[in-house]
């Protein structure tokens, strides 16, 4: 097995009741790389992302076929404890969703539910995570104030810090900048660049320029199928398929 492959999606089908949202997806995610999932709305890219940490388990009447291998082990195996699995795979959502708690408690939450009790260890890890998410300088004086008082961009970086605090190996991002202004977006993109040194990142985005800027590999989806996947440079300069080039040049979608 190629050791640089962190996660592999193997012949994955996904159904919402009778509707098949994903068709035989085959995709590999390389360690310390950013993979962007692009495609028009409803193409299945978010569905795929949510299959990677089994968030779709929450949807009633949904069904998965095929495998998602995390370091060679199928996460849909019945023996897998989904709670532990999710600790290893962080997620950042489309809309910033901090808990209605203080900045500190937001970041400490994942540590606490994972059994960390030592106050000084928690404090240390909270500070480290906020620094990693490039938020520390902005919030260090209001760390015990409500997270809902932060700006949208700050809230989203707080959500990133919250995800990083539990030291996941993979970070999934579901259109993390879609609710943010360009300045906040730029900050998050810079952050993604830094984070890939430590993490494997999968990002869903509607923004073509963003995919081009932040990712190493881009996968293009259409109607629940993976159309083309390649190095980002190649996808945006010389895509092999006409559908891909039509989409990235804005001719449809």
């Amino acid at each position, binding site marked *: 097995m190629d050791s640089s492959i962190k996660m592999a999606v193997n012949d994955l089908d996904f159904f919402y009741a009778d509707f098949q949202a994903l068709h035989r997806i085959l995709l590999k995610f390389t360690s310390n790389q950013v993979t962007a999932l692009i495609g028009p709305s409803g193409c299945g890219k978010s569905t795929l992302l949510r299959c990677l940490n089994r*968030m779709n388990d929450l949807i009633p009447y949904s069904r998965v076929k095929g495998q998602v291998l995390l370091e060679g082990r199928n996460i849909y195996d019945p023996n897998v404890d989904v709670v532990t699995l999710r*600790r290893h795979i962080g997620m950042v*959502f489309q*809309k910033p*969703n901090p808990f*209605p708690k203080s900045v500190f408690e937001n970041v400490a939450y*994942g540590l606490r*539910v994972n059994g960390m009790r030592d106050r000084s260890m928690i404090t240390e890890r909270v500070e480290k995570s906020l620094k990693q998410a490039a938020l520390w300088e902005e919030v260090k004086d209001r760390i015990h104030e409500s997270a809902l008082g932060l700006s949208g961009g700050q809230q989203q970086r707080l959500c990133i810090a919250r995800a990083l605090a539990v030291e996941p190996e993979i970070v999934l991002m579901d259109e993390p900048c879609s609710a943010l202004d360009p300045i906040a977006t730029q900050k998050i993109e810079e952050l993604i660049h830094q984070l890939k040194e430590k993490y494997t990142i999968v990002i869903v985005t509607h923004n073509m320029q963003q995919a081009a800027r932040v990712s190493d590999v881009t996968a293009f989806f259409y109607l629940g199928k993976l159309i083309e996947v390649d190095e980002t440079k190649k996808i945006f300069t010389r895509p092999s398929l006409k559908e891909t080039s039509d989409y990235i040049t804005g001719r449809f979608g």
Partner: protein
Amino acid sequence: MKGISYTASGRQRKERSIRLVFFAIALASIITLGLILLFLFMEGLPIFKKVSVQDFLLGKYWYPTDDPADFGIFALIMASIAVTGVSAVISIPLGVLTALYLAEAASARLRQWVKPVVELLAALPSVVIGFFGMVIVAPFLQDVFNVATGLNLFNAALMLAFMSIPTICSISEDAIFGVPAELKEASLALGATHWETIWRVIIPASISGICTAVILGMSRAIGETMVVLMVAGGAAMVPGSLFDPVRPMPASIAAEMAEAPFRGDHYYALFATGIVLFAFTLLFNVVADYISNRYRQVGAATL
């Protein structure tokens, strides 16, 4: 050039008159409420010419028909508080836990069925619940606990709990179900279990709604008349045990109003009891309103 006309037209006059009509309709119910209150105070306050406020509220003896009469409603107030308190101890856990189950654990199909059924409990006429308490629960309590009468504080509290559970459950369930899915997902994505998510995220985020539900449920219990009239036992004394018969304020008013001479002292005293009761329910509602506004912001991010 004609230009655009900015002057008020017939349409705008129509808008204004529609607004007036709605205002008048809204005003009608407020005025009615005001008149009832005015009446309540006009008929209740005269008793304080005979009895001081302190003696009325803290007097232990309620012998309104004796000569000289005693108008102390302390026993009635304590009865109301005891009955409401005990019923809250029963109804809060049952109501809130049912709500949690329905919102978080039950399948969508089960929820669809159970919630209306719980709400239907609220539609049971209180006289039916009172009848049930009298005929079924009272003899049962008498046998099982070997007490003098099954018509007592505990029976009344139990029946009132039945009546407030639907309120508590239904409003709590709305609050819990209304916690944004984003918060729940954020918690689960961090490796929290469902239970940890409920305890650390969902309950804190919906606590104001749950508190409101509890207080509204209790305010329903304290004002309820028919049930306490039928099953509380009716003895105007400060309760010493769970199985003492008691006479809560609404029961006292309902039982005695018919025999109290019109505009006599007894009549005034009963209206004054009504004022005290009103003060309690008003307090409950104000607190509920305050809590639901105070902790309103629970949502996901506001940009």
